[in-house]
């Protein structure tokens, strides 16, 4: 019995060491993925619980990627469960539409953005709105890259896709964002 309590204490210590330092990042990621502060808090709490329960599976390699992976997955299942119409999943789309989005742009053509959009003076609200319009799979790589400032390898780990997919999604996602922000001007 005492051994078990110690075991539990060890798990708490491990959790404190592995997950807690990344709480601010976890919260930010959750907020960007969910789009609302209260949802983000729910997601992070749920993710923390999952992380605690699964702390033994932490392989002591990359605590940050491990923690954010849990947050990301929790956010995804949360979004699926409480799906609002504004959240677009790539999986919701037909294969052709997915193909189109991943490789061609929003409306079946390559994303062509006007040359004059070279500098943004978009305010935070506009960027936020544009980001929210992106399919989640694009949004997450952009958030992980720009907000969490992760490298490609870690993004690939967190999103569980090959690096090549991370690269193409980043590129596509940015073009989509630029197009959306450009439309707004």
């Amino acid at each position, binding site marked *: 019995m005492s051994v*078990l309590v110690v*075991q539990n204490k060890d798990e708490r210590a491990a959790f404190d060491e592995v997950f807690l330092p990344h709480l601010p990042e976890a919260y930010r990621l959750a907020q960007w993925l969910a789009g609302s502060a209260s949802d*983000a808090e729910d997601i992070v709490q749920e993710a*923390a*619980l999952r992380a605690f329960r699964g702390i033994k599976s932490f392989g002591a390699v990359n605590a940050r990627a491990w923690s954010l992976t849990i947050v990301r997955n929790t956010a995804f299942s949360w979004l699926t469960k409480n799906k609002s119409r504004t959240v677009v999943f790539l999986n919701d789309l037909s294969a052709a539409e997915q193909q189109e989005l991943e490789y061609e742009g929003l409306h079946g053509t390559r994303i062509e*953005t006007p040359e004059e959009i070279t500098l943004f003076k978009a305010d935070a609200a506009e960027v936020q709105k544009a980001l929210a319009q992106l399919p989640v799979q694009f949004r997450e790589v952009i958030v992980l890259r720009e907000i969490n400032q992760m490298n490609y390898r870690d993004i690939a780990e967190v999103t569980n896709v090959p690096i090549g997919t991370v*690269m193409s999604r980043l590129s596509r996602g940015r073009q989509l964002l630029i197009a959306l922000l450009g439309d707004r001007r």
Partner: protein
Amino acid sequence: MVASLSDSDELQLNAYCDGELDPVSANEFERRLANDESLKARHARLLSLRRAMRSLPQADVPSGLQARIQSKLDAERPSNVTALRRRSWSFQALAAAAVFGAVISSAVMMTIEQYDQRENVASQVVAGHIRSLLAPQPFDIASSDRHTVKPWFTARLPASPQVPDLAAQGFALLGGRVDVVGHDPVATVVYKHAAHTVSLTTLRPGQSVSEQTIAGYNVRSWSDGDFTYVAVSDLPSADLAAFQRAFAAAAPAPEIK
């Protein structure tokens, strides 16, 4: 309109902005960038997007979130401990079952091995006996004098048995030979009873070889503190038992070196 970049240029541009190009590729890309207006425009645009993204207000962790998580984990704790306990019980059961199973199977294996070994020893001893009968003579050292046979063994083996002459009991000492049982050279004392040859092989003490008949030869075994003896002969087992009695009676007598 900016001329479309090829997909690979687009990816390269992104990778360059993200600092993911290796130094050589980055250097190459910078040279291209310097000479390509359209590429330059796209690069500037990506950077301004980045600036816009990074200037987004970053929400701080709500105060109390960490405390709420901690208390949630505290609440998790009792049930978790019970779960652990339950699990550990089943672990114990599992461990017990495994240990029990291991005990059983190792016992089975040991029994099988011991049985094999025993039978193996007996058949090896009998094989030595048969081989000796096929050889021109069943011994390496021929002597009816125990004071010749004993030193011969002593010179060759780590342990040598006493070699009593049992001629008075009907078992004349013929000599001795070295057999190999397992990988160990062992002393075998050879006696003659009428037309029958008796091989008495001496093994490490504490082994048990059951009384049996192998290939028509009777096997009889006994032990004292120094050796396990295995007698092999085509003698009837009653005569072999008489041999054992005679040897056991003679062997304990302190040997004069």
